[in-house]
């Protein structure tokens, strides 16, 4: 096709006009995948990058750390009890002679494991439950949502304590407890999202082309709801770590010789008046920083999944 300038509508807007210029004009935006765009939006949030960095650090600290910083975390060493921070014990020792840094690693392992697993289970179940409720609509939706309402009306800390008293706490049971109390939140959220996606015009477009409901759900509703679910899951990790810490603080945490940050904090509070600050601050700061980091990442993910922000 001959390149006659005035017959070339739209193409002149970009520097190098391609050989043919269709009537609709060229597309001005650079081609980039959705993931790439999402990452660009995410990366603009500096706090989220810091948060992400911290989460990676905490994962390495808890799971790789013990290989480098070797401490005795199984049997009690009474001679080291209450030792002050020194070159040998960076943050001192607790009343049983466990090194605090090593203790933080062990506690981090269980806190993260329980947090991630509980968030995964509760979000998976909640999402399926919520999506089913939203798709079904009508009576089914009403019944399923009333069950959720009933769940939400039980004061969860109370429920957890009763369960923890009845059953011996272990990482597995704690994951179960937290998931049971947490799933109604994601369920409600995903149901709301499904309800709104169901009426979107692009879902209707499938119907106009003669497609079935299952196609609309799998190809259009689910991929668009996944963002909400992932964001919710991120917050759920933070919340689960917080719930676990709360339980640990109340004495229903992971039993010895393992531990979790909440139990460490609770333990340390016994010595609040005695000046053993290393029993209190490290665990408390860990909880706060980790929860805040997950929340920052969650916020940025929410922006990253918002296609309208990517458009700019």
């Amino acid at each position, binding site marked *: 096709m001959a390149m006659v300038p005035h017959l070339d509508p*739209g193409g002149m807007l970009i520097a190098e006009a391609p050989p043919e210029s269709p009537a609709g*004009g060229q597309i001005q935006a650079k081609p980039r995948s959705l993931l790439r765009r999402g990452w660009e939006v995410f990366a603009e949030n500096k706090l989220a990058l810091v948060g992400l960095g911290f989460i990676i650090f905490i994962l390495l600290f808890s799971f790789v750390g013990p290989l480098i910083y070797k401490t005795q975390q199984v049997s009690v060493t009474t001679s080291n009890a209450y030792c002050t921070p020194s070159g040998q014990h960076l943050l001192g020792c607790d009343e049983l002679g466990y090194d605090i840094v090593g203790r933080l690693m062990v506690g981090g392992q269980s806190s993260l494991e329980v947090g991630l697993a509980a968030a995964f289970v509760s979000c998976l179940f909640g999402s399926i439950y919520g999506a089913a409720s939203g798709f079904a609509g009508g009576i089914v939706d009403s019944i399923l949502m009333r069950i959720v309402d009933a769940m939400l009306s039980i004061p969860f800390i109370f429920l957890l304590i009763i369960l923890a008293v009845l059953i011996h706490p272990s990482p597995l049971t704690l994951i179960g407890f937290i998931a049971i109390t947490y799933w109604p939140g994601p369920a409600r959220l995903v149901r709301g999202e499904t309800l709104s996606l169901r009426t979107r015009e692009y879902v209707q477009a499938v119907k106009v082309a003669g497609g079935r409901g299952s196609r609309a759900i799998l190809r259009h509703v689910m991929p668009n709801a996944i963002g909400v679910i992932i964001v919710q899951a991120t917050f759920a990790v933070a919340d689960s770590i917080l719930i676990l810490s709360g339980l640990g603080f109340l004495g229903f945490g992971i039993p010895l010789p393992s531990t979790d940050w909440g139990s460490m904090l609770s333990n340390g509070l016994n010595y609040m008046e005695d000046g053993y600050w290393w029993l209190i601050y490290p665990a408390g700061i860990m909880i706060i920083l980790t929860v805040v980091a997950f929340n920052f990442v969650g916020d940025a993910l929410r922006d990253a999944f918002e296609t309208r922000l990517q458009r700019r």
Partner: protein
Amino acid sequence: MAPLLEISDLRTEIRLREGVVHAVDGVSFSVEPGETLGIVGESGCGKTMTALTIMNLLPTGGHIAGGSIKLDGQEIQNLSEDKMRSIRGNDIGMIFQDPLTSLNPTMTIGKQIAEAVSLHREVSKDQAMDRAAEVLDLVGIPRVRERIKDYPHQFSGGMRQRVMIAMALACEPKLLIADEPTTALDVTIQKQILELIDDLRLRLGMSVILVTHDLGVIAGRADRVAVMYAGKIAEITDTETLFARPRHPYTEALFQALPDKAADAGERLYSIPGLPPDLVNPPKGCRFAARCRYVTDRCRDEEPALAGEVAGHEFRCFYPVGPSERAQTSRLTQYSQSTPEPELAGPRIGEELLRVDNLVKNFPVTKGAVLQRRVGWLSAVADVSFSIAKGETFGLVGESGCGKTTIGRLVVGLETVTSGTISFDGKDLAKSSARQYRKERRNIQLMFQDSYASLDPRMRAGTLLREPLVIQHIGSRREQTQQVAEMLDKVGLPRSAAERYPHEFSGGQRQRLGFARALMLSPQLIVADEPVSALDVSIQAQVLNMMKDLQHDLGLTYMFISHDLGVVRYLSDRIGVMYLGKLIEVGPAEEVYLRPAHPYTKGLLDSAPLADPEVEKAKVTEGVTGELPSAIHPPSGCRFRTRCPRAQEICVSVEPPMLPFAGEGHMAACHFPLESPIGSAIPSATQAGTPY
């Protein structure tokens, strides 16, 4: 007399992530006392930014980079926020586009207006309230004393806009800035509001800046017009001169892209190619150069100044179009003679394709969250019958809430009918089995209004276009991909578009994509629901031309739903006019436009603003008074009787039947039609001597 507002070389910049947007770039104009200045342009050309700059209400990141704004001789661009506050609302009033979001939903309207009064005047609460009642009365709110205690949601859209105007006028500003004041409103209400603004301007002696994208609105209301393009004024002069002798190629192209004018002449629309430039890195030379048909190298290198040949008419072009005001040769005529647009063949109208008989659709109105009690029915479509022949375009017009979209959704099967039949190609659609029905779906496809909402944001264009084929199991994967590529060619998109996501396209390109998807199954009938109402005039022309071309090439039948009478007239062979769920008039397009039989059709036509100042200013008819009644309790007898100037007792009790009129297939449902029906003793308007 000194101008009330004088703006010179105003420049506004907005800092964004990707750079600085030069939203207003050296704009100068003045507004005389008592004058209406219209600012027109397409979206993103800086007209709203100019208005916001005057008010110093710029969004975050926005600031005035240079120039001056003088109000009554006093420079206001550098005033402190405190001093600016005393000018805003007091000396300059502003009306925004959306009256719902501009009003506080938790305050009564009386209090909101009183608040505006007491901000600027030392008055007691009661005095402020009295003033509120006074201005509400001024803008034509009925029963002011009762309604002053109502909340915004208790008012209709038109009434809310009146409240907004009342609020803007509460302190008797010298200048009223109306930013797209009627864009969200129906034509009949738009006419009422525009008339109100005009009337108030005369009575209160204020100046008005009317910002709009609608050339028709400008034609009838503005004394002078500034045409903006890409942050600059392209042309500025008095309204008559601008419409009669535009000199800037952009202004000329805008007029030629208007469907009202092309429909008269039966010619193709001129569409401005391409898109407006990016205001972050504006082009070096003339901003319009990339889209101009008269462009030369000089235009690309050098920027023309805003200048004119005679006083009061300035434009920014080296090679102005039209006859020079110093009498020179006309290049416009030369151009149109040298490249005549190809004559479009007339529609090959064949046998009946779609037939709708006594169609009724009621939506239940429910109350309560858990146990949904039905408290009534909303009558969206009430006993509508029409048919569409193969190859023709049937236009369905009416105001919002008249049921035109519901009919479209019923025809494509997105809603189920309450009663009545829809038959396609002789077969009743409701009678086919579910499996068969899904297959038949392919023959009737829908083109959505909002292409952004109707394209899945997480799918590439290629996948989106392929989906209908996948659903209907047509062809192998390779054949499907091939078909997608061919379809992209047809709708004028580059083949590389298949790899892109919907948000990477411009509005017009997305609408092409939406159209392409509707065409993928090679349907016979396309239901197009307001396909161009979200687009700018120049882009609208591109899409309309494409639709017309493809109708011709592929032998398509269109059911075209729109509130824009100009667009419908341009595209349609036959037109149906709807009012509150009823089809009140149907007939050949020209017949309905030139000799409307139903008073509502006439009112609707009179309300629609035309881009012709002479016609527009000569209009004396009232349009349609009042507002659309509720569809839950539609009026008895003729549904239009509550707003009809000709209504009599029979209209309350007896529903008017469809009567035939001169012109093939021209029917209207009215007891007192404006034309005399064929073979009937009912007197027409002229015979009865009823003034209308």
